[in-house]
């Protein structure tokens, strides 16, 4: 168990170092999320007050769109020099590859959120009444769920030639319950004090996270196995 975590950290460290050098993926993700916000401001007039109601939804649309870019890269990047095979022949548990990739993607997507969510609030002149701590908690829990299932399906889709197109088709239907819960919970904590009304959504998300983390963790080795 301990070596599993250590290996996962090693892999995540390698990925992040790679990313730190090129800044390609994270740069693209941030630019893309900004562009999505820009397009939204054309689509929905920001000066209109009723638009405030869609802000919680926009947060998640941005996260998913930008996140998909990063998820697509996470296993495709390992095809260069076939380094994924290098990881497979190394004496590590396949699950640690999964864990490492989840950590990397979590860092990337959280970074994008840290930049794009304040920007969204700023550009749409949104003032929320809730407590920021609950908001952060809900964003974090939903993002974890998104990354867990996203990383798993990215590994699955990476086997196909058209993996960039395949990933959203696989991911979005499975993500729907999490997104319903995330949008509703975000709306509640942004508009009201306290978390009492959002607690059942929070429970649903935590349940989703745990269930899919366990399922993906154990099924991942089947994805890594050769035929």
């Amino acid at each position, binding site marked *: 168990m301990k070596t599993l975590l250590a290996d996962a950290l090693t892999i995540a460290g390698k990925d992040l170092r790679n990313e730190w050098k090129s800044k390609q993926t994270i740069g693209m993700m941030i630019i893309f999320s900004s562009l999505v916000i820009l397009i939204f401001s054309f689509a929905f007039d920001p000066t209109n007050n009723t638009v405030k109601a869609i802000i919680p939804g926009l947060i998640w649309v941005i996260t998913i769109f930008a996140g998909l870019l990063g998820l697509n890269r996470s296993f495709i990047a390992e095809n260069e020099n*076939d380094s994924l095979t290098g990881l497979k022949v190394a004496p590590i548990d396949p699950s640690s590859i999964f864990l490492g990739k989840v950590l990397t993607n979590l860092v990337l997507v959280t970074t994008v959120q840290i930049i794009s969510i304040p920007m969204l609030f700023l550009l749409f002149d949104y003032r929320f009444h809730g407590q920021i701590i609950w908001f952060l908690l809900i964003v974090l829990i939903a993002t974890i769920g998104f990354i867990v299932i996203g990383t798993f399906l990215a590994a699955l889709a990476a086997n196909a030639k058209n993996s960039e197109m395949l990933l959203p088709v696989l991911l979005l239907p499975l993500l729907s319950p999490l997104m319903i819960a995330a949008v509703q919970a975000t709306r509640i904590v942004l508009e009201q004090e306290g978390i009492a009304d959002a607690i059942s959504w929070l429970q649903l998300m935590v349940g989703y996270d745990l269930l899919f983390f366990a399922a993906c963790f154990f099924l991942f080795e089947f994805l890594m196995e050769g*035929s």
Partner: protein
Amino acid sequence: MLELKNITKVIGDKLILRNFSLTLARGESVAVIGPNGAGKSTFFKLAVGLMQPTSGEIHLNQAQIKKKSLLLQKKIGYLGHESFLYNALTPRENLVFYGKLYKVKNIEEKVANLLKEVGLHYFKDIPIRSFSRGMMQRLAIARVLLADPEYLFLDEPHTGLDQEAVSLLNRLIEERQREGIGILLISHDFEQVVSVCERVLVLNKGRIIEERQIDSEEGLMPFKNWYEAVVSGK
């Protein structure tokens, strides 16, 4: 001692390997040759644990390898077609990364020594993106040797290398062999097979059809003629 016993592998509805058996002692060097599609690469993948055999057993030092044990991966250094290296990272970073995964002790020191040995010492802090095929291959060898494997599996290591790199590679292989490492080589390059290996197996259609010792005095031509005769089945 690494033993593969009666390995059979079916992929889809194709029988890739049938009743394949092989014994590799430490300090021995064996070449596996054969035409394309004979199952050479598949057999390598089975041996390094990338695939599971349909039937058959793999034994390492008299102990049977179970699916989950990572023993095989630890003891075998696998040099594949590709280098398995990360282009954005420097040689040092690449080796340190793999060293951590293989739980190598004194990583920094060992990496420095290995880089000197393969002659990449001066380039240790340059991203390997700009490396030539020869330099990549040298680094890939360093990656394989890093974990002190007991067996080296080399999948066509000589392709695309210049004369200098080839002789460096052969020197490294010979040195390791003298230290008691078992070498298994897949190659189409008979010149290298003759100069590196002591024993040769000919694989065709998933089966070992011939096996013999190599006499390095014999020269290349007779060996080639022998191979042609074996494969065409005369």
